[in-house]
C-alpha cells in the first residue's frame, strides 16, 4: 500500500493544529509554515498527477481494512487533476493573502485555511460516499470560519445565511445516503456501483429517490439554479481572496456529480438512465443565463464576480450534463480554466476594492489604476470566454461536444448569448471603474473626501504600504500565467482531459481497483 496517496489530506491536517497550538502568536511563523505546506502540497500533487497519468487507479485502504468494509481513498486521473488544481490555487491564494495582509485582520486564518484544504483534498480523494459527507463537513466548517474572517455586520449576516443553507444541504445529504444505504447496504462507491447494477428494476423506486436527492445535494454545492441562493451573498461578502479559494468549492459539487453519476448511476444504467442528464441540462442552461444577467445587474464588484462564478458553473454543468466522453472531456478543460479565471478575477477585484471600495461607480482613480485595469481586462476576457485566453477554447470544446446532443440548438444559443451578456456586464463594470474614473479626474472638479469615510493618517499610511506590496500582483500574475499556459498547452491538457473522461466512462477499472482484493 502506498502511503504517499494520503499525503494531501494528512499534511494540512497536521500543519493546521501545529499552527494553532504552537506558532499562533507569531504571524511570520504561521505564514512560513502555511506557505511551506502549500508549496509541499503542490509538489506532492504534481507527483500524484504524474503517477495517475498512466491510467492506473491507486487505492489506499485506511486502517488496512479491505475495500467494502473500510474506507478507501482512490487516486485516478480525475482525482489527481482536482487535487493538483486545488493545491495550485491554494498556493496562489495563500501568497495573495500574505502579501495583502488579509491574514492579519482576524484570528487563525492560516489554520482554517489548511483545514479547508484538508477537506477539499479529502473530498476529491475519497472513494466512500459517507466519507465524502465527512470531508464536505470538514471543508464547510473551515469555510464558515474563513467566510466571516475579519468580521463586520454584513459579513456575519451573510455568514448565517451561508451556514444555514449548507446545514440544510448536509441534512439532505444524510437523507440521501441513508436512502442509498437502506437499499444497497453499502456506502463504498465502487461497491455501490456493483450493487446498484445488480438490483432488479422493479425494486428501485427508493434508489431513484436517493439518486435524485444526492443530485440535489451536489447541485446545492455546485450552485445550480434554483439552488444557488447561497452563493452571491456569501461570495460577495466573504473576504474576496477567500472567495477566490471558494472558486474550487463549487467545483467540488461538479466533481461529485461527475464521480457519482458516471460510476454509480452511470449513463448506461437502465434504472436511472437519463435521470440526471434530463434534469441537469435545463438547470445548467438556466444557471448560465441567470448568471450572465446577474453580471449585468451587479452594482458591487464582489457580486459581479460571484455571478461570473455562477455563469461558469452553468457552462461547466452543461458540458457535464451531456454525459458523453466528449462532453466530460470539454467539461474538465473548462473546469481547470474556470477555476483559475474565477479566482483570478476575485483577486483582481480585491485589489480594486482595497483601493476604492466595493461599489461599481466612477470614483477618483486609484493608485496603480493602469496595471489593475489591464489585469481586470485580462480576467474579464478569461471569464467571458473571449480569445485569446483559455475560456474561448473551453467554450469552443463545450459547443463542439454538444453538437451531437438533441438539444444542441438550445445549448449553442444559451452559451453564446450568455457569453455576450457577460461581456456586456464585465465591460460595463470595467469602463465605470477604470475609464469613467479617469474622465472624472480629468474634469478636476472633485477632490478627496469623496468616499464618505474618514480615515485616519495611520490607516492611510497602512493603505499606502499595502498598495506598494508586490506579492498580491505576483499572485495575480501567477494565475494569469496559469491561464496563458492552459491556452498554450491546450493540446496536452485536452489530451489529459480526454484520457480522464475515457477512464470515467469505463467504471470497471475503478471498481476492479477498489474491490479487486475482495472479490477474489
Amino acid at each position, binding site marked *: 500500500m502506498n502511503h504517499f496517496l494520503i499525503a494531501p489530506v494528512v499534511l494540512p491536517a497536521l500543519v493546521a493544529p501545529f499552527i494553532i497550538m504552537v506558532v499562533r502568536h507569531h504571524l511570520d511563523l504561521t505564514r512560513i509554515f502555511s506557505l511551506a505546506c502549500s508549496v509541499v502540497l503542490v509538489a506532492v500533487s504534481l507527483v500524484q498527477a504524474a503517477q495517475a497519468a498512466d491510467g492506473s487507479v491507486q487505492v489506499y485502504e485506511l486502517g488496512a481494512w479491505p475495500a467494502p468494509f473500510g474506507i478507501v481513498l482512490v487516486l485516478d486521473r480525475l482525482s489527481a487533476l482536482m487535487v493538483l488544481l486545488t493545491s495550485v490555487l491554494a498556493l496562489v491564494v495563500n501568497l495573495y493573502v500574505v502579501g495583502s495582509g488579509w491574514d492579519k*485582520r482576524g484570528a487563525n486564518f492560516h489554520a482554517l485555511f489548511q483545514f479547508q484544504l484538508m477537506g477539499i483534498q479529502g473530498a476529491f480523494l475519497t472513494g466512500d460516499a*459517507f466519507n465524502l459527507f*465527512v470531508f464536505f*463537513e470538514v471543508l*464547510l*466548517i473551515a469555510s*464558515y470560519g474563513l467566510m*466571516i474572517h*475579519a*468580521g*463586520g*455586520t*454584513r*459579513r*456575519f*449576516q*451573510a*455568514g*448565517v*445565511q451561508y*451556514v*444555514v443553507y449548507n*446545514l*440544510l444541504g*448536509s*441534512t439532505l445529504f*444524510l*437523507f440521501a*445516503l*441513508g*436512502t442509498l*444505504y*437502506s437499499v444497497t*447496504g453499502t*456506502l463504498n462507491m465502487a461497491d455501490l456501483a456493483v450493487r446498484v447494477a445488480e438490483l432488479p428494476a422493479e425494486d428501485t423506486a427508493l434508489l431513484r429517490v436517493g439518486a435524485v436527492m444526492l443530485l440535489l445535494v451536489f447541485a446545492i454545492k455546485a450552485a445550480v439554479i434554483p439552488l444557488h441562493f447561497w452563493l452571491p*451573498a456569501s461570495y460577495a*461578502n466573504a*473576504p474576496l481572496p477567500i472567495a477566490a479559494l471558494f472558486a474550487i468549492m463549487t467545483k467540488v459539487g461538479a466533481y461529485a456529480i461527475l464521480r457519482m453519476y458516471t460510476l454509480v448511476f452511470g449513463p448506461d444504467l437502465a434504472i436511472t438512465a437519463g435521470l440526471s442528464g434530463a434534469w441537469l441540462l435545463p438547470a445548467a442552461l438556466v444557471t448560465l443565463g441567470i448568471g450572465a444577467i446577474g453580471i449585468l445587474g451587479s*452594482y*458591487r464588484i*464582489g457580486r459581479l464576480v460571484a455571478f461570473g462564478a455562477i455563469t461558469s458553473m452553468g457552462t461547466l454543468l452543461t458540458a457535464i450534463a451531456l454525459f458523453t466522453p466528449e462532453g466530460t472531456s470539454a467539461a474538465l478543460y473548462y473546469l481547470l480554466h474556470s477555476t483559475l479565471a474565477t479566482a483570478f478575477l476575485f483577486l483582481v477585484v480585491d485589489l480594486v*476594492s*482595497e483601493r476604492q*471600495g*466595493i*461599489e461599481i461607480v466612477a470614483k477618483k482613480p486609484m493608485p496603480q489604476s493602469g496595471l489593475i485595469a489591464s489585469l481586470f481586462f485580462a480576467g474579464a476576457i478569461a471569464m467571458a470566454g473571449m480569445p485569446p485566453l483559455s475560456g474561448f477554447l473551453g467554450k469552443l470544446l463545450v459547443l463542439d461536444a454538444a453538437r451531437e446532443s438533441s438539444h444542441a440548438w438550445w445549448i449553442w444559443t444559451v452559451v453564446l448569448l450568455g457569453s455576450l451578456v457577460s461581456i456586456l456586464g464585465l465591460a460595463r463594470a470595467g469602463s465605470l471603474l477604470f475609464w469613467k474614473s479617469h474622465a472624472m479626474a480629468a474634469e478636476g472638479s472633485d477632490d478627496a473626501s469623496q468616499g464618505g*469615510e474618514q480615515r485616519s493618517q495611520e490607516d492611510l499610511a497602512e493603505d499606502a504600504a499595502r498598495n506598494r506590496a508586490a506579492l498580491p500582483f505576483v499572485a495575480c500574475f501567477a494565475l494569469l500565467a496559469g491561464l496563458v499556459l492552459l491556452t498554450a498547452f491546450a493540446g496536452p491538457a485536452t489530451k489529459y482531459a480526454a484520457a480522464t473522461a475515457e477512464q470515467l466512462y469505463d467504471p470497471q477499472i475503478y471498481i476492479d481497483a477498489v474491490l479487486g482484493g475482495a472479490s477474489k
Partner: protein
Amino acid sequence: MELLVASAVGVLTAAGIYLILRRQTFPVILGLSLLTYGVNIFLFATGRLAVNAPPILNKYEEIAYTDPLPQALVLTAIVISFGMTAVVVMIALAAYLSSRDDRIDMPDHPEDEGENA
C-alpha cells in the same frame, strides 16, 4: 414500532422545515436542530429496526443481530451536527450583536451597508 419511528422522522422533519422558513434566526436554528434529529432517527432506521438485538455477529450461535454500521453513521452525524449547530449559534450571535437585529435576511440597500472589510 415502524409507525412510531416513521412518524417521528416525518413530524420532526416537517416541524424543522416549517421553522427554517421563519424570518428570525433563532427559530431557524431550532428548525435545523429538529431536522438533524429527524435525519439521525432516519439514518438509525436505515439498518432496519431490530429490538433487543446486539450489533455484533455471533459465530457460535444463530441469533438475531442488528446492523452496526448505521449506528456508527449516526454517531458521526450527531457529532457533526452538534458542532455545526454550535458554529451557527455563534455566528448568528455575532450577527445579532453587531446589527441589533435577529432577522435572517439582509437589507439590500447599498447605503446602509457597513464598509466591507
